[in-house]
């Protein structure tokens, strides 16, 4: 295999300019969107670097310490990252490196006999597929980074704390309450209790569409945390439907004060803190 790899390397080296032109032509015709994102000049520069280094990598296979190998990885990482940021699809991203085959194979076919041809194709395929997978990994990585950034931003705005009265704070919960949001909500809630030295926290669940066992467990967790801090927790917005589901599911919210309307909750909170309106 090594012998053939060297042979291919020499062959490609001889035809590097033709291959490079063919590759670029292919990219411009068949993967226009990719070229648009990367830019025509840059595409040409990138493909040039990639091709030169690929030729060097061939005899070394996927030896990770090889200088050319690292160079290829570096260029591919840059390109994939860019594509991911520009909302290109994974196939478009992988296309960038995979398309080099379209330019390399004809040259190999022309110069090698049938038996060698098969070996050569396997060798080249192996290497390029390996690199294509890498682009995919980088693409996924930067996607994940993007998603987690967005999630963080979303979480930060998704838990507002309202000081409704002296010593009384309220958190309106809207949307789904999963364990991560509960964690976030508890942090915000306890920070507010600590900072404002509030005695009562009202959790309003009017905006939660479905309250199942899991959501109920999250609510209990949050209410327990409030209690451990030394404050009272009142859960408001318990509609008929929610009351029905909770009892049918056998969920016990018994330890915590609950009521239907915000108004009732506020009234109770005022009593708990010995306050009156007006």
């Amino acid at each position, binding site marked *: 295999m090594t012998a053939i790899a060297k042979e291919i390397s020499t062959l490609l080296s001889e035809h590097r300019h033709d291959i490079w032109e063919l590759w670029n032509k292919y990219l411009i015709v068949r993967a226009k969107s990719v070229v648009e994102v990367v830019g025509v000049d840059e595409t040409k520069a990138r493909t040039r670097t990639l091709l030169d280094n690929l030729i060097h990598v061939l005899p070394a296979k996927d030896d990770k310490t090889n200088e050319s190998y690292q160079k290829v990885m570096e260029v591919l990482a840059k390109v994939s990252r860019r594509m991911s940021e520009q909302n290109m699809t994974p196939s478009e991203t992988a296309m960038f490196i995979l398309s080099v085959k379209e330019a390399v194979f004809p040259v190999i076919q022309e110069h090698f006999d049938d038996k060698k041809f098969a070996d050569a194709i396997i060798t080249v395929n192996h290497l390029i597929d390996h690199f294509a997978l890498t682009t995919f990994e980088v693409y996924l990585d930067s996607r994940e980074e993007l998603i987690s950034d967005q999630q963080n931003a979303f979480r930060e705005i998704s838990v507002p704390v309202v000081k409704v009265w002296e010593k009384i704070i309220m958190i309106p919960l809207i949307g789904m309450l999963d364990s991560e949001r509960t964690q976030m909500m508890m942090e915000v809630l306890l920070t507010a*209790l600590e900072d404002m030295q*509030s005695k009562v926290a009202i959790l309003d669940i009017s905006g939660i569409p479905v309250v199942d066992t899991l959501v109920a467990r999250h609510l209990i967790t949050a209410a327990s945390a409030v209690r451990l801090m030394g404050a*009272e927790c009142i859960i408001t917005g318990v509609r008929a439907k929610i009351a029905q589901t909770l009892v049918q599911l056998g969920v016990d919210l018994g330890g915590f004060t609950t009521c239907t309307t915000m108004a009732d909750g506020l009234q109770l909170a005022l009593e708990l803190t010995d306050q009156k309106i007006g």
Partner: protein
Amino acid sequence: MGEVTILNIGNNIIVPVQTELHDEDARQLQTDILKKIENTGAKGLLIDVSAVSIIDSFLGRLLVETSKMARLMGTETVLVGMKKEVVLTLIQLGLQMKNLHTALNIEDGLALLEKMITGPSLSRRKDEKFRK
């Protein structure tokens, strides 16, 4: 020992925990508190943990047990000033300390003790059965 001061003010015992306790210190503190109750006949016990940065399952359990023991001796316990990070950690750990009374700070804690000792309050109605 003697690192943790146990104060006796009026009808209450106040324990401001100022250092990180290791397990034996904590056990010793429990004994000291109970002895103090025995000697003074205090009606209320207030433990201030606002300076404690770590409460693990051992210390958490010890606090809950101390409050149960104090109740057997006719003394109500309030734990005050737990840091929010400590609360979140205890919750995640699965330790809810259900039967422990808590307050945000010493002032609120003393007020709560007063209410618990002198009469039923709106918020603590369900605890009445424990006291009778």
